[in-house]
């Protein structure tokens, strides 16, 4: 008998056709991930632009005017909204018309001319505190520029203002504040897309794989074909292993397409070892398949499988370090994050793209995925076998 045996081959073909033959489900496998990668790569950014800022300039002197005009010329500002009183500032912020408002005091120019410290109040919208903090960083850089130019008058263009980068990217104020030389390794201009594109690829691969496998057993059970499978000579181990194949194939192809889109479409540099990333991708998918099959073997309907995927997938993404770094989380959640395959895969993914992650580091994150895969696949087999009781 040749390997794989005709029995296993038949099941693999069946599984592949189940997801691939129907044009609708085929479209749902290909279309949305690509669409999402495009939309979300552009949408998900922590760089600021097109910001509206409120200005209340109570100072009649030169420097108040200078600050306002520099602010108006800054590329991250879309427009300035003039305000004439604290009440107006309050109203603008309440109504979310501006992200922040600056209040320049009457004595501003006078203080500066007299070489006294002059302070400008910045009121920021705490409802959008994250963006507000970033904006504050930009404003600080802008003021830093003003200070520098005041002491040494400008020669030509002011290079300290944020400039449009070559790829339409923002050069965030390289915070060369007084006495600090900042170097951002791996991503010198802190292009957010370099972070989001590889990571999003990982998340999308996870969801597609999870859904395909979670539905596979539940669908057979709901439609009655599972009984047909169970009366055939196929063993539970075979059933689980053959359900692994299409998900593995789909996940791998999708993972590769996503990586290619990152490198060639979004220009994210790939510095690591491709074969190592490929092996990690396979491990990652196998561990996800195990989770998907576990969900599937517990659920009796497709609806339950879908909701189960959801209830597992969303928290997994949130804890994986995709949204915010794992080390910001409490100890307990950091522990849980270690048993989520995505956590490890994201590290390998980001590392392979930007950091030329060495093999030893990849190995350190690959073995947990292998362990998760071994546990979940065995559990799924046990669940399928228990259906025969």
């Amino acid at each position, binding site marked *: 008998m040749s390997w794989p*045996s*005709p029995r296993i081959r*038949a099941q693999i073909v069946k599984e592949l056709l189940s997801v691939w*033959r*129907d044009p609708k489900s085929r479209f749902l496998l290909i279309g949305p991930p690509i669409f999402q990668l495009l939309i979300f790569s552009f949408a998900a950014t922590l760089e600021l632009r097109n910001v509206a800022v409120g200005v209340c300039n109570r100072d009649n002197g030169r420097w108040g005017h200078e600050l306002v005009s520099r602010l108006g010329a800054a590329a991250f500002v879309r427009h300035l909204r003039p305000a004439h009183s604290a009440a107006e500032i309050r109203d603008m912020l309440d109504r979310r018309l501006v992200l922040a408002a600056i209040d320049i005091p009457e004595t501003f120019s006078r203080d500066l001319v007299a070489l006294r410290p002059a302070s400008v109040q910045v009121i920021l919208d705490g409802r959008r505190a994250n963006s507000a903090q970033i904006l504050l960083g930009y404003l600080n850089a802008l003021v830093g520029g003003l200070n520098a130019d005041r002491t040494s008058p400008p020669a030509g263009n002011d290079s300290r203002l944020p400039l449009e980068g070559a790829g339409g990217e923002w050069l965030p104020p390289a915070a060369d504040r007084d006495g600090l030389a900042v170097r951002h390794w791996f991503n010198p201009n802190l292009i957010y897309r370099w972070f989001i594109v590889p990571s999003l690829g990982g998340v999308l691969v996870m969801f597609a794989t999870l859904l395909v496998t979670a539905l596979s057993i539940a669908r057979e059970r709901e*439609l*009655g074909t599972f009984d047909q499978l169970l009366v*055939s000579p196929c063993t539970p181990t075979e059933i689980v292993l053959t359900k692994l194949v299409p998900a593995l194939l789909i996940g791998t192809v999708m993972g590769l397409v996503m990586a290619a889109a990152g490198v060639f479409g979004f220009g994210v540099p790939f510095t690591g070892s491709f074969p190592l990333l490929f092996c990690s991708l396979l491990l990652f998918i196998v561990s996800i398949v195990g989770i998907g099959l576990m969900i599937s073997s517990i659920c009796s309907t497709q609806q339950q499988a879908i909701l189960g995927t959801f209830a597992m997938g969303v928290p997994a993404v949130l804890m994986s370090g995709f949204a915010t770094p794992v080390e910001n989380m409490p100890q307990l959640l950091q522990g849980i994050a270690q048993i989520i395959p995505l956590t490890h895969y994201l590290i390998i993914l980001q590392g392979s793209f930007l950091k030329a992650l060495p093999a030893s580091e990849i190995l350190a994150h690959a073995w947990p995925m292998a362990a998760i895969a071994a546990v979940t696949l065995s559990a799924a087999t046990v669940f399928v076998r228990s259906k025969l009781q």
Partner: protein
Amino acid sequence: MSVTAASPEAAHTAAIEIIGLTKRFGAVDALRDLTARIEAGRLTGLVGPDGAGKTTLMRLMAGLMRPSAGTIRVLGHDTARDAGRIPALTGYMPQRFGLYEDLTVIENLRLYARLRALGRTELTAGFDRLLTFTRLGPFTARLAGRLSGGMKQKLGLACALMAEPRVLLLDEPGVGVDPVSRQDLWRMVNALTADGVAVVWATAYLDEAERCDTVILLNAGQVQFSGPPDELTATLADRSFRLPQPRPDRRLVLSRALDLPSVCDGVIQGEAVRVVLRQGADRQEIDTFAESVGTAAVPVPPRFEDGFVDLLGGGPGGTSVLAERMAPVSLAGELAVECRALTRRFGEFTATDRVSFQVAKGEIFGLLGPNGAGKSTTFKMLCGLLKPTAGEALVTGLNLRTAASAAKSRLGYMAQKFSLYGLLSVRQNLEFSAGVYGLDGAAKHTRIEEMIEIFHLQAYLKSSPDELPLGYRQRLALACAVMHEPPVLFLDEPTSGVDPITRREFWTHINGMVRKGVTVLVTTHFMDEAEYCDRVALMYRARVIALDAPDALKREASAGDSELPTMENTFIHLIEAIDAADNAPAAQEVA
């Protein structure tokens, strides 16, 4: 029923008038220029082969679809122009009745009552009436999903009856219902027609059609016959014969009889073979044939089914190409299937209680019983879908507990739902079945081509099984089940809802395979099918209460009458006998 009795003249007014009705789906005419009349106070049977347009007509009458041409008037209201009035006048029970499985019996009833805006007092009275009527009283708190098939149908009927409709449309209410529950359904429907309700009963079971007042026979979207069933049956006078106890083997005799030019239809009835001659055929041929098999052709009264098959051009021939090409089965032992004190408990509930029987090689063994009697559980344990709590199940001598994979490769399984992969094409389904049972390479290819040829599947190879007519779905399911030439075949309600012509073709194949030595285990609610069995086991309350040849059981139930009862009556009689025996001691205690 609390409905006031209809006046005698109202009994024959038209409840539904259908004039020149055509319904098109794309380029296909599901119904073509159909004219019919359904009368109040009568039970009208809507019969026809699969795909004849029965369900489409039902939906049109319920106002759920709009005619492409022509009109339907329900109690004088046009279903197209006056659509809003139809639901208040009609009760409609779709094929898969819309019971909410996660709601209890009483919650389902309440929902449909409130949808029909019944008042509170009407409700209480109505529920009591319907619960008594359906005998569902003790189960009001049970989830609908946990009811047996028969109880589900009765609950569906109760929901449709909620507003005391003047027109009741029932789409295949008898599918999956055991004879005892079916009797209940009949009783309910008869009470309704007596009250002047027009009842339309769509069915593929012709013994059901025979009990209707009038029958509308549809074929390919047109009316083939309309009138009382006797009228059709009468045209068959002197053409039905019974060949009692033919030799050497009634299956072979049937197969040869069906190949006679003068024979149009034939079935097995216990030890006898029943044949119907073609129109104008001479009885000479059948008499000679009967003599050659050591018996005589005894004229018997025709049945509606004979008329139906005749009207549709006769049944299929008697030769199964499938069986002919099959190599004879060789088994080491004489026993194909054996169960030893098979017991299965679900928590406190015992589904099967020490069930034991043996099935010999080349036997057709029937497993009958009311819904919930434990036959499905027994069946599932025999083909390895369930592990027994105690006892052993053996297939061709292999224990399902210890040699599951080996035992499973010796059996073929065909389920009620046909269990085909809707996401795969017909050919891909065949290839999957072949592969799963280890066929490979040229052997696999030849076998698949053979199946396609035998079951005439060429035209459908690229379609999904879901798009196939029911008859073809059944053929495909059988093809998948016998792909690997299993010595033992398990059939779970294999012809549920399938029309008589397709059913005959199916049994021709089964008979042929049995003659080659295949062993068949079948569960069915369809008593004509039980007649094909060599022996049947009747299960009731988790136990086997009778096990014998069909005719022997009939004799047991006949209590000395010269005329043997039908299989259906035998079934009911045996069940009632057990109920009586169980109640007797209780009654004595009270006394």
